[in-house]
């Protein structure tokens, strides 16, 4: 059989088109579904286009005021307290100089410089932790929450290096050794040695129609809502008060706002 160059190029062109166009995509889903049933959102789940938090720090007098919030969070998620540098942080406190280094003016007033400031994962719009994760164990959901799948975490700690807010903690040891037995919240898993963890904006509580544990414990001093909805509580609070976010110059666009 003698093929001319012309007919060869025709067939080659057609083949390239067939492979690169969507035709092959129709032959089968790349990600096969195993379950015979179907999936749906939870019935009474709270939803938003972009979840955000506004912390009214004026209403917290001292670090003791934050203790019930920290306890509520750590109880709900079985977060251990490990003395020393290997502690696990979901909701924690630090000084103004560490929290807002960009705003660290000389001769700050006493209240600002001496107070403890509440910290948690900022659930950034441009999360560096997500970009550096090699296994997609951490990812951004459609509602703005930066979530984690601990099953996929390989403990490389790139995300800890990537996060400019120190919001991620590595489990250097089995966290259950530092938890009560049975664990504080038997409905929620613990983590294991070798994975990184962080605040989840209580995605599991939002899914059943509850506000985050710290918001509930703050009794109105922390607002939580949809940043894209102009009528939401958080938008109203931001419109009425001066607020700041952590390290804005980095461009990560945190979802946690502080009213100072």
């Amino acid at each position: 059989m003698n093929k001319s160059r012309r007919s060869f190029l025709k067939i080659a062109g057609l083949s390239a088109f067939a492979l690169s166009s969507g035709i092959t995509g129709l032959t089968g889903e790349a990600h096969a579904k195993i379950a015979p049933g179907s999936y749906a959102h939870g019935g009474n789940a709270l939803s938003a286009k972009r979840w955000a938090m506004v912390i009214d720090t004026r209403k917290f007098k001292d670090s003791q005021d934050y203790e019930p919030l920290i306890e509520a969070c750590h109880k709900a998620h079985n977060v251990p307290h490990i003395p020393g540098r290997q502690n696990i942080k979901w909701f924690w406190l630090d000084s103004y100089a560490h929290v807002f280094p960009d705003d660290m003016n000389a001769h700050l007033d006493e209240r600002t410089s001496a107070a403890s400031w509440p910290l948690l994962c900022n659930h950034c719009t441009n999360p560096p932790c997500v970009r550096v994760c090699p296994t997609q164990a951490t990812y951004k959901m459609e509602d703005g929450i930066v979530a984690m799948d601990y099953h996929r975490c390989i403990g490389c700690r790139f995300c800890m290096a990537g996060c400019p807010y120190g919001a991620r903690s590595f489990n250097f040891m089995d966290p259950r050794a530092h938890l009560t037995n049975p664990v504080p919240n038997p409905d929620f898993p613990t983590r294991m040695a070798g994975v990184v963890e962080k605040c989840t904006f209580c995605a599991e509580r939002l899914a059943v129609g509850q506000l985050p544990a710290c918001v509930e414990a703050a009794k109105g001093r922390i607002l939580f809502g949809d940043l894209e909805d102009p009528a939401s509580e958080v938008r109203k609070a931001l419109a009425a008060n001066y607020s700041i976010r952590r390290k804005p110059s980095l461009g990560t666009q945190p979802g946690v706002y502080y009213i100072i």
Partner: protein
Amino acid sequence: MYNAKAVILGILVFVALSTSPFWSSFIGRDYKTTDIALPKDEKNCLENVEFMRSQHMRLLNEWRDEALRNENRAYIASDGKKWVISLQNTCLKCHNNYEDFCQKCHVANSVYPYCWTCHIIPKGSK
């Protein structure tokens, strides 16, 4: 054929030995089940037994991805019943006997999943 007797005997011995697993399964040696303890209160799992037996691990993987990544925290089974997607709070509420259900079968099949380093085994065991 030289040494016909020895050769034929050898072939017979070889055939008998190589097929011995088949014969031994006919005489005695009952098929052993794992004797797992099924939940007492519930008759049906979310899908049929054959599916759950062979695919539960794949179903759990799919549940995890749907719930965590797509916020699909409800599963509508093929019989139309709605289930909350959760290993700890849905599966283990019926299958609350870890040692006689999960573990027995996993040990018999020499699989050692590490679900329980994070998920909490229902009380009564560990």
